[in-house]
């Protein structure tokens, strides 16, 4: 394999690994802050115990999210130095701003939150978790704006042999990034809510701490349902945006080969990339795809055949990832709605089948998130910056394939071990359940 492919593999592997931990951080930070707010405003001890229990899982997960994030920042220079040099004038700024504005805030106040229980007042402690939570969300916004610039480059001019920024505001208000941000953020909230529902269901099945986990489940079901609906809505907007700005990606997502008006959406499709057609295509709802892409049934969708083969994204993986992601999204809406309705009733824990399903549903949002990134990044190929710079031209020139093979091996072994340990610890502490005694905190904070 050459340096480009190896570097792509490494970026994909390290990025997807990083993304196992980020969405739970995004969602669980806000939800933990929410629980602590309830505790501070009501004084109800259960909310404090919830804060501590879910907060612990948040922290075990947080550690790996942080350390794997540094890899992402360094990799632009390590493996993609031509990219960094060519677009650094506009792409470097958001990364530096993210560190200064958000990453500092979250990293400093997470320390205050963990170690501050008996050192600062109740209210200051609450402020610490909110600052951490808001900062992680702002981090995501800035990073997604940077990623959006690679998808829909704005506010730049090609000058001095590189892309130079000429409109910073355009970068910050890139609609592609803003929609993507809400889509991603809501999917993070949904994921965290599914983790809470799943873990709670596991304990409820064992009749363990029933009040505690009923309350957790009920809270999470609301978050999960609202967030999943918003994921779908923003996903719909996002797809329309892609249809307009990245028609090849859209065509690959839907496996559309021929340019046509009035394109229907087929429920059953399987692409046959080799022969540039679909092997299966049935159960078609007329005009639906045209409508979803352009908000009019007459909308013309450009097919993949309009583009030379080397300019098309890899159709089969993009299409399958997209379909599966959407399917999982619908499953999440449906199951969280059922959860929302059932958890209103006091005896909902009798429904053991539903609780069991919710335990096994934990991986669903994780899988959906990974698939979403595959659609976004594979769908942009062969470009690294859409329409501006090809991936093949972006790689570092001074590195050899041996170097990248070794680093990729290193990442695989290291991340494999750390990931296994982290998931093991998450499961261990999730199964262990909440601590019964929080009196020491209440005593100290009462004085504070």
């Amino acid at each position: 394999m050459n340096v480009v492919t190896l570097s792509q593999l490494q970026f994909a592997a390290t990025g997807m690994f990083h993304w196992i931990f980020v969405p739970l951080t995004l969602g669980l930070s806000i939800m933990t802050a929410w629980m602590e707010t309830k505790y501070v405003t009501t004084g109800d001890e259960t909310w404090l115990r919830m804060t501590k229990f879910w907060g612990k899982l948040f922290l075990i997960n947080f550690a790996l999210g942080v350390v794997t994030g540094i890899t992402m920042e360094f990799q632009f220079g390590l493996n993609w130095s031509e990219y960094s040099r060519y677009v650094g004038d506009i792409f470097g700024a958001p990364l530096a701003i993210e560190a200064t504005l958000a990453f500092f805030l979250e990293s400093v106040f997470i320390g205050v939150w963990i170690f501050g229980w008996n050192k600062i007042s109740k209210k200051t402690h609450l402020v610490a978790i909110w600052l951490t939570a808001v900062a992680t969300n702002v981090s995501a916004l800035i990073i997604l704006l940077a990623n959006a610039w690679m998808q829909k480059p704005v506010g730049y001019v090609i000058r001095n042999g590189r892309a130079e920024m000429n409109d910073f505001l355009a970068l910050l208000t890139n609609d592609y990034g803003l929609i993507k941000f809400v889509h991603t953020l809501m999917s993070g909230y949904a994921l965290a809510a599914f983790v809470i529902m799943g873990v709670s269901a596991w304990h409820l099945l064992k009749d363990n701490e029933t009040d505690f986990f009923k309350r957790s489940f009920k809270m999470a079901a609301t978050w999960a349902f609202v967030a999943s609906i918003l994921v779908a809505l923003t996903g719909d907007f996002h797809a329309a945006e892609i249809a307009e700005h990245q028609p090849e990606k859209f065509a690959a997502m839907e496996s559309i080969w021929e340019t046509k008006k009035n394109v229907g959406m087929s429920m059953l499709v399987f692409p046959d990339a080799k022969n540039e057609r679909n092997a299966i295509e049935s159960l078609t709802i007329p005009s639906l795809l045209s409508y979803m892409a352009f908000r009019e049934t007459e909308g013309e969708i450009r097919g993949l055949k309009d583009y030379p083969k080397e300019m098309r994204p890899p159709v089969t993986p993009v299409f399958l990832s997209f379909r599966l992601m959407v399917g999982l999204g619908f499953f999440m809406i449906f199951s969280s709605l059922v959860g929302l309705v059932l958890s209103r009733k006091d005896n909902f824990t009798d429904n053991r089948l539903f609780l069991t399903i919710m335990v096994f549903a934990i991986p669903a949002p994780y899988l959906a998130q990974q698939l979403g990134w595959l659609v976004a990044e594979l769908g942009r190929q062969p470009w690294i910056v859409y329409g501006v710079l090809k991936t093949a031209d972006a790689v570092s020139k001074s590195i050899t394939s041996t170097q990248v093979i070794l680093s990729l091996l290193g990442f695989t072994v290291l991340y494999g071990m750390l990931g296994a340990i982290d998931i093991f610890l998450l499961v261990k502490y999730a199964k262990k359940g909440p601590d019964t005694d929080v009196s020491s905190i209440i005593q100290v904070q009462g004085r504070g």
Partner: protein
Amino acid sequence: MDISIFQIIWFVLWGVLWAVYFMLDGFVLGTGFMAGFLAKSDTEKRVLINAVGPVWDGNEVWLVTAGGATFAAFPTTYALMFSNLYSALILLLFALIVRGVSFEFRGKIDSPVWKKSWDTAIIVASFLPALLFGVAFGNIFKGIPMKNDFAAINFSYDGTLIGLLNSYGLLTGVLFVLLFAVHGSLYAAIKTTGDLSRRGEELANKLWLPLLVVAVAFLGYTYPATKLYDNFLKAPVLLIVPLIAVVSLLLVKVFIAKGSCHKAFLFSCLTIVFVVFTGVTGLFPNLIPSNIDPASNLTIFNSSSSLLTLQIMTVVAAIFVPIVICYKIWVYRIFRARVTNEEVLGNPEAY
């Protein structure tokens, strides 16, 4: 304003970010790889980890910011520095990743084998970055074998990982290790109590002389090995920078001898900051020189971002860096008390 003003502002900020990073992570790395000498029991090891627990993550962000600032302000330098030093930086990255999770993971399972493994991980993953940062900066001071044609956008590098392990690079590596060892020991002295604190003071005292010897050797060897002194010879007033470094280092010993570890730690901070400033002052206007062709030097003029980007970044830094400094000082104040054995044993939240 002219672009060169902003290029100079960002050169200064670049130096400050690295200096502050080494000052802050220096003591975390130092207590990390000195843990075996400092702490004798499991409780003492936990005290040590908890002494850095609330702040290590925030300290590491200075590195992320230094990296981000290099990317935003000097993208060509960022691109070539990272790709040319690929293997060394990958190793550094692995070490920093392991170091970070070790703190979180160590206390999560109550088994001697588990804890011992993470103790070893902390020592190795703290020592490696100290050494590698030193080696990397030694090579940056010396220049690396690259040939850059900026007009034709054609860059080449002719170095290897083994090539970085030259005598000057290694000497700088040892200098960093000793600086952080003393720094970390002093941090243990002022942040813990009893035997642990006393051992920190003793170790700092013992390691001071080797540090001085290496520092003198470094200053001497820098003359034939690098061009850092050129700037100081051109403008002798700049010699104040290395002078402050040397005086601070001497004061570290003075205050340890007086039993005043807080002041010794303060001057250890100054020593690290001014050692970095000495190197950076000598580099100006280069960020990374080439040791085979002066025209290939990466300078603040030939590798910077455009005027607009530098202006925007200056505004961002002018607003947010002071805010960051304010809340970081606040946090250090909250956690200013020494960490005791009883506190760690009684607190289920502790690492």
